[in-house]
């Protein structure tokens, strides 16, 4: 059972890695924000799977924190990009 968790976690980490490579090589700034979003979902899933397979206690709290922070970082980045467009566009 644990091996299956780890296999799933490995697959998800691989997918996150491919996605990150794609996003961080991308041209536009806004697209790069998706990297944080990707880690906010895929990262948390892999984290939960690995932690359950290796029985690390209290990992749900860490995952909760990560979910909150991924949203927080995205808000902050979008916020500043928006502000920048406001400066030049309007």
């Amino acid at each position, binding site marked *: 059972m644990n091996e299956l968790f780890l296999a*799933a976690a490995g697959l998800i980490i691989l997918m996150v890695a491919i996605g990150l490579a794609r996003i961080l090589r991308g041209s536009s700034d806004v697209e790069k924000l998706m990297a944080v979003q990707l880690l906010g979902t895929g990262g948390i899933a892999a984290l939960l799977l690995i932690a359950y397979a290796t029985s690390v206690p209290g990992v749900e*709290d860490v995952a909760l924190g990560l979910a909150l922070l991924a949203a927080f970082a995205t808000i902050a980045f979008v916020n500043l990009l928006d502000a920048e467009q406001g400066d030049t566009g309007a």
Partner: protein
Amino acid sequence: MITLLNVFSITAISAGAFFFFAGTVGLLRFPDSLSRLHALTKADTLGLGLVALGLLPRADSALSALKLIVIWALVLLSAASTAQLIGRALRQSRR
């Protein structure tokens, strides 16, 4: 009962991993930023939900199980809203 739960876990987690796979395929194959954003936020959120569902029977306590559900709900909320935010920013930057 145990085997039934195990089958449930295996099915849910495999399906979850598949959706992450699908999300990444979308990220690589879709032509423009907005549809890539769509693939990323929808498929991956569903994947995380299925993984959390599959881990539910293995949770130590009722509180842990509740937290797994809250994690998913939180990601659902933040993924949907940040997708809106990123999409807006994408549209503005294209103009």
